[in-house]
């Protein structure tokens, strides 16, 4: 059996880089060669193992990077003067070909950047966030210094909406943005803003929904933050207990147990006892057992 060069072929095949004719020829060989079949299986299991090392940037990091980039595009940075930055912007546009309207609009753009002093000073600026809540497109969310937010929405054209989070239409737009599956960074920003309006049942329902359904653990943690003030409420405690028992992400379960434990209400005992029998994370098990001990409760169900 001639296996010379087969390892590289198998490897290229697994990477999808082997030409079709060579792949057909390789498979004819593999049908009759146990060693190459084993090598193909090893390479496949290697690829599966590598996949588990994939890192994903959390949406909050993406959102903050976008904010910083937006700020950097509007202001001088490092040794560069603001004139240099503006010159860069103009050079990009082709300064020698600038016509008055474009010059005016470019100047206006720069002016907007400098006029909004709070906009530059505030770390919550989100110029690069977008979502599509129910036909209206939320393009940007800005957090102002006094608790209000400013939203840019796109209907047939973009515009900014500014107002307190608890007031309409800002609240409804944020609720829609928090439910939007398109961009986790926008969902995170929207949930953060909505914490100011958490006295509204509708807003709390959004937190519950995000905790139960959002595929991204960072968003579920945001939702837990929003529910923190309501950790004593029986209805919300049930939601927290469900998250503690069922959430796939250990950091979400850690936060859920901390929120539930904070008020030491007796209903937590049953939840923690159920948890101890199934929890895989050592820290959560240890913490749960500690809480049960502090409450003079047994770690097991009898």
């Amino acid at each position: 059996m001639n296996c010379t060069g087969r390892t590289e072929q198998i490897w290229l095949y697994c990477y999808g880089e082997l030409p079709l004719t060579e792949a057909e020829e390789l498979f004819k060989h593999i049908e009759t060669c146990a060693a190459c079949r084993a090598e193909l299986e090893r390479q496949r299991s290697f690829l599966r193992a590598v996949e588990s090392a994939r890192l994903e940037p959390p949406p909050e990091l993406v959102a903050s990077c976008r904010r910083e980039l937006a700020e950097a595009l509007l202001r001088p940075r490092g040794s560069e003067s603001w004139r240099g930055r503006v010159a860069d912007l103009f050079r990009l546009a082709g300064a020698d070909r600038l016509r008055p309207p474009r010059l005016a609009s470019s100047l206006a753009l720069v002016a907007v950047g400098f006029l909004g002093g709070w906009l530059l000073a505030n770390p919550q600026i989100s110029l690069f966030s977008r979502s599509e809540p129910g036909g209206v497109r939320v393009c940007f969310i800005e957090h102002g210094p006094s608790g209000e937010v400013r939203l840019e929405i796109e209907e047939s054209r973009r515009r900014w909406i500014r107002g307190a989070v608890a007031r309409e239409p800002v609240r409804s737009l944020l609720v829609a943005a928090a439910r939007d599956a398109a961009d986790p960074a926008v969902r995170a920003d929207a949930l953060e803003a909505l914490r100011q309006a958490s006295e509204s049942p509708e807003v709390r329902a959004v937190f519950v929904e995000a905790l139960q359904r959002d595929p991204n653990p960072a968003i579920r943690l945001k939702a837990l933050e929003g529910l923190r003030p309501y950790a004593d409420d029986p209805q919300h405690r049930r939601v927290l207990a469900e998250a503690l028992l069922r959430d796939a992400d250990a950091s979400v379960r850690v936060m859920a147990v901390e929120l539930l434990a904070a008020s030491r209400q007796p209903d937590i005992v049953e939840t923690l006892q159920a948890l101890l029998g199934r929890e895989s994370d050592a820290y959560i098990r240890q913490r749960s057992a500690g809480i049960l001990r502090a409450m003079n409760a047994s770690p097991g169900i009898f």
Partner: protein
Amino acid sequence: MTCGRLGAETAGAEATLIRAAQKGDQEAFERLVRTYDADVLRLAMSLLRSAEDARDIYQEAFLRVWRNLRDFRFDASFQSWLYRIVANLCLDVLRKRKARGHASAVTGNGRLTPDALDILAEPRAEADPQRALFSREVGERVRSALDGLTSRERLVFELRHFHGMRLKEIGEVLGASEEAAKNCLFRATQKMRQALGDFL
């Protein structure tokens, strides 16, 4: 030219965005940023194992793109051009770390430092906690094995495995031939398999 990660949008649509951004259209530039920025961050995080360094790379890379976009001639894909900028910035950081005698943000036992751990997310969390735990262990072993590669091998490996780039595109990022990219990836894969050994 490939259309990179624009998904439903075609290569032609991406070219239109690039041309608009070249003329100073900020909205077009934003769309380009939003199309690729999570990937840029992932690549920088993977190579540098530091959220703060990845954040710096993100900003510097896109500022360079903004400043130099008018010089982009469509000879390669936009994604390859962007990744080349990111890769060069990351390799510079790694070179500086090496010169300063710093290792990566990975401790002696192969575990990531808190800064790196801060940035780890589990987007495809397993429903089964046992399986999730095993998956996490395997992930740590693989990341530890990645530290045994040279910077160039690691870059090639990351681009192929976590960014789905073809060998030809990886060659464009490296400024090298497809064959050179293939050889580098082959070396990296062999080393990784050796390092993981019986764990597979």
